């Protein structure tokens, strides 16, 4: 039993992370690429039987167990790690490489965890790894914000898990969001999935990574949350509105955004919204479709991030306002961006069409008209920003191009080409994907009415794009996002509160003629003393002690 542990797909990645931290040069390159490949092999060689059990603190732990969902996500994560590693070969930052492998390993751990405790452990390691990826680019404050957000999500998740274990053991099982414990757990997972009202962390953090680090970031955290949702909250009806809000939010902000990588981050939230809706439906088809869409999403979002990374590396900026006219100097990246964008918009003959069809089919079978029409509309919107706006303004539109100083290296081209080929292959032969996602074989993908429907939708969207091109021109600036809630609102409240208290104090002092400044000084001194507990005078300590005693005695005497 215990030797199954050696087949755990997260093991080579985490060992590799340590090795990469120590090794340098060519050997490091080899380890960096080989360990994700080894993980991919292990994903497929891990038997789908009950995992080994260990006893820890009276809890039964199953560090590794495989099923078809785990295999699907594991494959996607391994592919993303391989592609990301190959793409990142010209990036010679040992810190980022070690962090990325740790991150990828923890993501595999989350997928293959057989119990809630293991799941939580990897969940936290994943947060640490991803924060380190951001830190390794020198973005310490963004990294800190990101880490805090995940600490917050981790807190919710931990408390929820503790409660759930108290009421039914460590086994991973479907929950209903009806008790405090499972609600906390759901909230913790949704924080990682980028659900409102904390969606802003995605677009805040991911673009702060280096040109190569963002590829890793775009793959794991949110999709691991999706995998966990599939396991823990299948068919939780509350997820449908949450997912719809995410999809709409992601689309609107992506349409407005100027920075390519921020746009892609918003797009992640939008696409994850599709998956969340499917999980909310909860039928076997819907769950399988969510998994399939996650798989495909990881591939095309990775491809888009690679294209964006190539542009950023070559020109030093990823801002649409500063780009344009790059198609001639960077044809490969342009092609990658178009393939990725069309796949995101579910263009027939791309992989996105396959998985989105499955989600739509699941919604239709469930007779969920609102979600169906809404997501169809949002698909058209996705075409606007990813299929058209992004390649047009970044690459194709006539403009004096910025000089591309660093051309894509063969390794980067290999990574982009591989991802693009897989997307096109799945699009041309949906059976490739359906074979190992049990449950979506019944979905009609390449039928004439279906293709025509999608083409009309996309052409309609294209007409709108050309008509309203002027409204979609990128501008420098940012859109107020949900992080306003925790970055600006508290300041406003404090300001308002202090203004109010000043007025109250002023009103009071008019009546009792107490010097407001004196009151303020006294209260400030007290706050200072309790907060910083700087240097209390001995008398104060004695006073507090005596007061405490006196209160006890008084109460007792009453």
């Amino acid at each position, binding site marked *: 039993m215990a030797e199954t542990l050696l087949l755990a797909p997260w093991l080579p990645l985490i060992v590799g992370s340590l090795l990469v931290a120590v090794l340098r040069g060519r050997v490091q390159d080899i380890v960096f690429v080989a360990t994700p490949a080894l993980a991919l092999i292990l994903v497929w060689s891990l038997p789908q039987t009950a995992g080994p059990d260990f006893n*820890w*603190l*009276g809890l039964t732990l199953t560090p590794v167990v495989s099923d078809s969902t785990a295999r699907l996500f594991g494959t996607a994560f391994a592919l993303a790690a391989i592609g990301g590693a190959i793409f990142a070969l010209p990036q010679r930052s040992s810190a980022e490489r070690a962090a990325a492998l740790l991150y990828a390993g923890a993501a595999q751990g989350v997928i293959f965890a057989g119990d809630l405790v293991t799941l*939580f*452990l990897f969940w*936290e390691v994943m947060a640490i790894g991803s924060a380190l990826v951001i*830190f390794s680019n020198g973005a*310490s404050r963004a990294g*800190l914000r990101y*880490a*805090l957000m995940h*600490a*917050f999500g981790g*807190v919710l998740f*931990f*408390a929820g898990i*503790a*409660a759930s*274990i*108290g009421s039914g053991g460590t086994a991973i099982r479907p929950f209903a969001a009806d008790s*405090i*414990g499972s609600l*906390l757990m759901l909230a913790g997972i949704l924080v990682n999935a980028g659900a409102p009202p904390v969606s802003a962390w995605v677009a805040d953090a991911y673009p702060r990574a280096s040109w190569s680090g963002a590829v890793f970031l775009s793959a794991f955290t949110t999709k691991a949350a999706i995998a966990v949702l599939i396991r823990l909250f299948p068919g939780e009806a509350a997820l449908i509105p949450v997912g719809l809000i995410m999809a709409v939010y992601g689309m609107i902000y992506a349409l407005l955004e100027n920075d390519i990588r921020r746009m892609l981050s918003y797009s992640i939230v939008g696409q994850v919204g599709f998956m969340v809706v499917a999980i909310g439906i909860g039928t076997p088809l819907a769950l399988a479709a969510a998994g399939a869409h996650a798989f495909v999403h990881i591939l095309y979002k990775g491809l888009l991030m690679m294209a964006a990374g190539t542009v950023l590396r070559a020109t030093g900026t990823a801002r649409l306002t500063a780009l344009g006219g790059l198609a001639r100097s960077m044809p490969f990246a342009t092609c990658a961006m178009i393939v990725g964008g069309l796949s995101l918009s579910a263009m027939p003959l791309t992989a996105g069409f396959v998985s989105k069809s499955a989600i739509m089919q699941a919604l239709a079978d469930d007779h969920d008209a609102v979600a169906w029409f809404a997501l169809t509309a949002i698909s058209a919107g996705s075409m606007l920003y990813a299929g058209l706006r992004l390649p047009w303004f970044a690459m194709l539109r006539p403009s004096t191009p910025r000089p591309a100083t660093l051309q894509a290296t063969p390794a980067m081209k290999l990574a982009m080409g591989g991802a693009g080929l897989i997307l096109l292959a799945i699009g041309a032969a949906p059976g490739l994907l359906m074979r190992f996602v049990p449950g979506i074989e019944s979905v009609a993908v390449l039928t004439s009415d279906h293709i025509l429907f999608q083409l009309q939708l996309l052409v309609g969207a294209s007409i709108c794009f050309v008509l309203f091109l002027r409204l979609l021109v990128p501008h420098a600036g940012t859109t107020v996002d949900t992080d306003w809630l925790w970055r600006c609102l508290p300041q406003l409240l404090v300001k308002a509160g202090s203004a109010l208290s000043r007025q109250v104090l002023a009103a009071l002092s008019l009546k009792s003629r107490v010097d407001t400044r004196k009151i303020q000084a006294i209260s400030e001194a007290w706050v200072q003393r*309790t*907060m*910083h*507990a700087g*240097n*209390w005078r*001995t008398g*104060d*300590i*004695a006073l*507090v*002690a005596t007061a*405490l*005693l006196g209160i*006890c*005695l008084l*109460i*007792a*005497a*009453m």
Partner: protein
Amino acid sequence: MSFLAAIDQHLPVIVVLAPLLGAVLVALVRVEIASWPIAVLAALISAAAAFRLVFVVEQLGVVSYRLGGFAPELGIEYRVDAVNVLILLVVTAVSLVTLLYARQSVAAEIDGGRVPWFYAMMLVAMAGLLGMAITGDAFNAFVFLEISSLSTYTLIALGRDRRALVAAYQYLIVGTIGATFYVIGVGLLYLATGTLNLALIVERLPDVVSPRALIAAEAFILVGIALKLALFPLHAWLPNAYGYAPSAATVLLASTATKVAVYLMARFLFGVFGIHVEIGPVSVTGVLILLSLAAMFVASLAAVFQRDVKRLLAFSSVAQIGYITLGLALANPAGLTGAFLHIVNHALMKGAAFMAIGAVLLRCGSSRLDDLAGIGRTMPATAVALTIAGLGLIGVPGTSGFVSKWYLVLGAFDDGKGWLAFMIVASSVIAVLYVGRLLEVVWFREPGKAALAASEAPLSMLLPTLLLAGLTIFFGIDAEMPARLAGAAATVLLGGHP
């Protein structure tokens, strides 16, 4: 065989006597070179005895030792059960490791002539703490409390910083107030029951006519002990005292002194008064939960704003004591197990952290946060130990801090207080802030002048530091042993048999 059996019989007194005799010897010999080996030897004997006691107690349940052979009504009884044997183990083990660590740190921080006194005082403090933990006599506990306190004042005053004198003086006054409250409470108990032996007091409590005297006694005793264990808001003496004491003394005090006071409080709360007693309309547990939460949040926040690492860690201690008292207040098996586990784990983590800072102090001559910049490059092993300890303070899974917080969270849920579980975890997030601040400075900043000049800590200091840090990791992964001992302690306190 018979000799071993005879030793077994005298274990409780050997635990206390060894450091006391060691202190006397060190003070008599007064040679700088000889004092350290004597101190280590004494601590070793004491630790061995405590270790052996763990087994004896597991076999017998309770070990009672009558000093002078008098019956408990007349004389002093040492009484060891699953609760205090754990405390004895922690105090002796940590003291031993601290003494092993201390030699070079003390040589650097203390004037040559005072070194023997320092070791003597360390041993006296150790004996006092052990005595407090082991005795079954309320007044004898007071005597040991004073012994440990007096030696602690001396230890703090030996610090290099001039502010150490002020800190020691402040602690002297506060500690005396606490001890006075305690002895007044014990006096009231004696008036009501006619005995000082804790077990006998419990027997006679039902016959007491005036509950008011008892409640007054409880109030005096609990507030008195609360001062010693730095329960919020009576904590203000602690940051200065720990901050300015010599490094080795800080390690000893931070990891053991408050823990023994917590033990004493638990003994009185559970063993004597009963945890669910109410003072008027107010329940003791409610008050304790409130104060613990305040400690967890306010002290953690205060730690975030400290500029000196020793003070930062001292504030963190106040917060961590909040977790322990919270576990006591939960008063259910999981919560109490968590509290006692945290006593053990916090002793290890804080010991490792203060040891690492002591090493930095030795090499860089400063414990200001800014002066630690980039120390991770020049003193990597020390920084690793500090990092592990910091992660433990947060409660990161894989460290022992997680295990104890885990039990606390379980205890909160068992008590039907889900919000409390949330508060426990939420306060850990503040710990993320202050530990993160520390780690950021240590690992990510460019080394300053002091850090560049520093070299790795000497092996004699590094090994004990790494030992405690390693135990923090080890008990985070294999928590079977401490969890069993803590669980047994919880069972005994709740009135069951182990």
